[in-house]
C-alpha cells in the first residue's frame, strides 16, 4: 500500500510550479530593451568604406556569384579620377539585396575580396511591400563619419590604382 508517495508526487509537481512563480521573469521587454547580439551575429548587410570615405565595394559581383539565394544584384561602372567612388577601375553603380530572398548565410562576406560587405547587427527588418524588401545601395552603404568626404570624390590621378588593398600579412 503506497499512500504517501502518490500524494507527495502530486504535491511536488504543484510545489515546482508554485516555486517558479517567484523566480525573476526571463522576459526581455523587446522594443524598449534589446538584447545585444553575439559578435558573429549575421544581420542586415552593410557596405563598408575606407577611412578616407571611398567605398570598399569595387563592383566585382563575386558576392552575387556566391549568393546561394540569388539575392544580390550588382551592376558596375567605371571610376574616373574626377568622379571616384572606390579605389581601382570600377565601382558598384547599382547594388541591391532582396531581403526576402537573403538567407543570411554570410557567403557574400566570405566572397568579397575587399571586405566591403559585412553582415551587421541589425535584425529589425520589416517592410509592408515586396518592393520595399529590395534594399538599394543607398540603404546598405555605411553612413559617413564626420570629417570624411562623401563619394564621388575628386582625386589625384595615379593614387588609387589598386582595387584590392595590398595584404599586410598574407597569412592573416
Amino acid at each position, binding site marked *: 500500500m*503506497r499512500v504517501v508517495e502518490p500524494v507527495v508526487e502530486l504535491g511536488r509537481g504543484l510545489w515546482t510550479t*508554485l516555486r517558479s512563480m517567484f523566480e525573476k521573469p526571463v522576459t526581455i*521587454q523587446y522594443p524598449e530593451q534589446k538584447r545585444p547580439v553575439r559578435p558573429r551575429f549575421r544581420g542586415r548587410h552593410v557596405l563598408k568604406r575606407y577611412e578616407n570615405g571611398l567605398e570598399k565595394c569595387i563592383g566585382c559581383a563575386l558576392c552575387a556569384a556566391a549568393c546561394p539565394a540569388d539575392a544580390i544584384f550588382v551592376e558596375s561602372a567605371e571610376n574616373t579620377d574626377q568622379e571616384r567612388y572606390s579605389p581601382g577601375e570600377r565601382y558598384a553603380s547599382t547594388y541591391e539585396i532582396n531581403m526576402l530572398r537573403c538567407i543570411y548565410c554570410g557567403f557574400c562576406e566570405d566572397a568579397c575580396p575587399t571586405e566591403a560587405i559585412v553582415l551587421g547587427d541589425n535584425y529589425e527588418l520589416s517592410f509592408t511591400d515586396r518592393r520595399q524588401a529590395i534594399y538599394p545601395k543607398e540603404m546598405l552603404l555605411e553612413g559617413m563619419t564626420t570629417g570624411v568626404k562623401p563619394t564621388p570624390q575628386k582625386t589625384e590621378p595615379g593614387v588609387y590604382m589598386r582595387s584590392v588593398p595590398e595584404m599586410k600579412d598574407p597569412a592573416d
Partner: protein
Amino acid sequence: MTFALVIEWLIKGLVLVLILLGGFAYLTLYERKALARIQVRIGPNRAGPWGILQPIADAIKLIFKEELTPARSDKLLFILAPVITLVPALVITAVVPWGPTLTVFGHKLTLYIADINVGVLYIMSVASISVYGIVLAGWSSNNKYAMMGGMRSSAQMISYEIALGLSFVSAIMLAGSMRMLDIVAAQKNLWFVLLQPVGTAIFLIATLAEVNRPPFDMPEAEQELTAGYHAEYSGMKFALLFMAEYDKMIAISMIGATLFFGGYREFWFLSNTVFSVDRTPWLGPVYLFVKLVILLFGMIWVRATFPRIRYDRLMAFGWKVLLPLSLAVVFITGVGIILAEQINPLWMWGIPAVSLLVGVFAIAMIDRELRRKDYARR
C-alpha cells in the same frame, strides 16, 4: 413597495450579471498573468498599465472578427448553442449569497438574488443544462472533431456530475438544509472543509471536470480534437462559449466557497473581531471575493502543473474511484451526524477521521491499480 422591490431585484440582477461578465474578462487576464508568472514570464503588460486593458482589447478584436457558419450546419442550433451554454453559467449564481443582510438608508438590502429553500438542487439542475449547449455546439457544427468534443463533454460532465452532486450532499447533510443561507450560517464556527475534507477534495476534483479545466479538458483537447466542440466557432459566438467556460469557473468557485469554505463568512482567525461579518456586514462580499480568487488560483495552478489525463483513465477515475468514494463519504457523514445527535457531539469529529481513512484507502487503490498494470507489462 412592490415596485421598489422589483427595481431592487433588477438592480441586483444587473449588478450580478455585470460582475460575471466583467469578471470573465478579468479572469482571463488573471489566468494569463498567473500562468505567465508560473512559466517565468511577465504576461500581458502592453494594453494599459499592467495590461489591465487587455480584456477590452480582446473583446474589441472578437467583436470585429468575421463570423463563419460552416456549410450544411444546423444554423439555428449553431447560433443557439453558445446562448444555451452561457445562460446557465450566468443564472446559476442567483442563489449564491454574497453577504448578510445590509441596512442601507433604513432599507434592508439582502445580498442575493433568490433565496430558494432548495438552492443546492437549483444549482445542480441548472449546471446540467449547460451540457446541452456544448453537445449542440459540437453536433450542429457539422464537424467530426467538434462532434467528438461534444460527445466527450457530455459523457464527462454526466459522469462527474454524480460525484459533484454527492459531494454537495455531504454539505447539505452537515447543514441540515438545502438553502444556501442556512449552509453559510451553519459554517459560522467551523467550515465544512474541516468536517468533510474528502468531500471537499471530491468537489474540487469533480469541479475541474465539470468546467472542462485541465487536466480534465478532454472536450477541447487541442492535440486530439483541434479545439473540440468550439472548433467551428469564431467571432462573438466563440466569445460566448469562452465566456460561458470562464463564468462557469467563477460560478463553481463561488458555490465551492459557499458550500465548503464558509461562504461570505470571515476567516476563522477574524471571528469575534471587528472584521467579523456580524459586526461589519459589508465585508461579506469582500471575503467571498478573496475566497473566489484563491479558489480560481487553485484551478489555474493545477492547469499549469498537470498534463491532460487520457480519456479512458478520466472516465475510469470518475466512475471507479470518485463515485464509490463519494458514496462512502455520504454514508460516513450521515452515520457521523446520527451518532453526534444521539450519543455525543464529539462523534462529529469521527466524520473527517473516517473520511480521511477512506480517502487514503482510495489513493492506495488507485496507486495499486496503476502499479499492477505496470507490473503486467514487464
